[in-house]
């Protein structure tokens, strides 16, 4: 398959981040403020927190919320996109809601979930889910709507049933937009994870952010944000790796 400079290699991204960290270090030392400690201080705080055991348990909780919420968003988002591509009435009914939820400020989700589920992990998982599901549904629907009549006629000429045409021609054809939706969706899911945990601050990394933020411990807050960013980057790389592995998913016309 064609080697796309965008799709391959974590090295350029790592180099860019390293340069950013260096810039941060220099700037923070030259112009010290209490809000932006130097990168080295943030790393030191991170190490301390790991040694004290504060981080790992909450990281596990956060990752659990992320995994469950995102898995749900993928399942429901793909199913909704597929269903709306097959049933036009469903699409007519559902699309305005997709648009509405995509444009609504996502911070609104968490207070609403809180009134339903209270201060539980369901609220946090729900936040992850709601942040990601609408993007995934929208891009899946858009991908399936781009038909390739030539390929569908070819498949029909070889005796393909409607179901075979869908799974063997239309679904693979839609993979580039679907994968884009997953890539954006996973990053929004991470955002939903933090939003949910900061609001319902009883467990998870977001809770730590709120606690340390309340104590104005900027180095600890930034350390946790750093962990979240790393999580997000790893998720994006995972989606990229999935695309590259399976040519039937990762092809680009």
């Amino acid at each position, binding site marked *: 398959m064609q080697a796309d400079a965008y799709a391959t290699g974590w090295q350029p991204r790592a180099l860019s981040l390293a340069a950013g960290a260096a810039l941060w270090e220099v700037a923070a030392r030259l112009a010290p403020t209490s809000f932006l400690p130097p990168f080295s201080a943030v790393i030191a705080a991170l190490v301390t927190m790991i040694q004290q055991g504060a981080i790992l348990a909450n990281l596990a909780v956060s990752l659990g919320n992320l995994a469950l919420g995102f898995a749900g968003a993928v399942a429901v988002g793909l199913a909704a996109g597929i269903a709306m591509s097959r049933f036009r009435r469903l699409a007519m009914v559902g699309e305005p809601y997709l648009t509405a939820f995509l444009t609504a400020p996502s911070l609104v989700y968490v207070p609403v979930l809180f009134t339903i589920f209270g201060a539980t992990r369901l609220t946090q998982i729900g936040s992850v889910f709601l942040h990601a599901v609408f993007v995934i549904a929208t891009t899946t629907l858009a991908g399936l709507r781009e038909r390739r009549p*030539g*390929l569908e006629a*070819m498949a029909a*000429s070889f*005796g393909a049933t409607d179901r*075979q045409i869908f799974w*063997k*021609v239309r679904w693979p054809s839609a993979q580039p937009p679907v994968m884009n939706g997953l890539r954006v969706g996973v990053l929004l899911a991470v955002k939903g994870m933090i939003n949910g945990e900061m609001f319902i601050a009883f467990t998870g990394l977001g809770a730590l952010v709120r606690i340390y933020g309340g104590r104005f411990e900027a180095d600890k807050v930034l350390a946790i944000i750093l962990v979240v960013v790393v999580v997000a980057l790893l998720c994006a790389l995972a989606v990229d790796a999935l695309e590259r592995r399976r*040519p039937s998913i990762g092809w680009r016309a």
Partner: protein
Amino acid sequence: MIEIAACRKAFLDPGTRTSAPVLDGVDLTVRDHEFVCVLGPSGCGKTTLLRILAGLVRPDSGSVAINGRPVTGPGPDRGMVFQDFALLPWADVVANISFGLELRGVGRGEREARAQALIHAVGLGGFEHHFPPQLSGGMQQRVGLARALAIEPEILLMDEPFGALDSQTRRGLQEDLLALHAGNRKTVVFVTHSVDEAVRLGDRIVLLTSRPARVEEIVSVDLPRPRPLDVAALPRFVALKEHLWARLRRQAHGRSEGDAG
């Protein structure tokens, strides 16, 4: 044996909402093992006729039967080759060739074995795991041809298959097709707008009028089989070509006179 009688087809023009007739009573019989070329001006309805034979389009009236049974849809007795190749870009050569077999539930081992045999037959050895964007046009059409042959059809339906290729590639594929046909003697219905190609390949040439199409003339190509490589130099070849060109020219003049009148 293919029997088409009084075939009529009109399409609804979505812009003007009027019915535009495309086929206006086409009669045609194709015998087993024959290589028939359907020749006509651009847009005359040749592709529509082929699609009706493939079972992708239903005629408005008339009958289309293969071996006595009316055509109601696609079937395993017919394999089609498309002008724009119509390969799946996300599948490699082996997977594309075995697509028709996969649709039918043939097991992976057998699919790959049959695909491998055809890869060698069409001259794609070494490219088994290449993807269509990595192949030239000529190679992609070889995949298309292999895919149609893989389902072992009685009839090959070819819709201007070499129309998108440069002349050198085209000539190479014509010669390869002739060699394959000499070997497997399938019935072939080959749509083209090239007089040269029709005379080079066909046993008979069905000349269609312009839209709405009817059969204007059927020409028997009495050139030797197997076709020699320099067949185009034979006087008979030249005579047939000139005859067909004269007919096509008269069709074109008839049209323009009709417009002026």
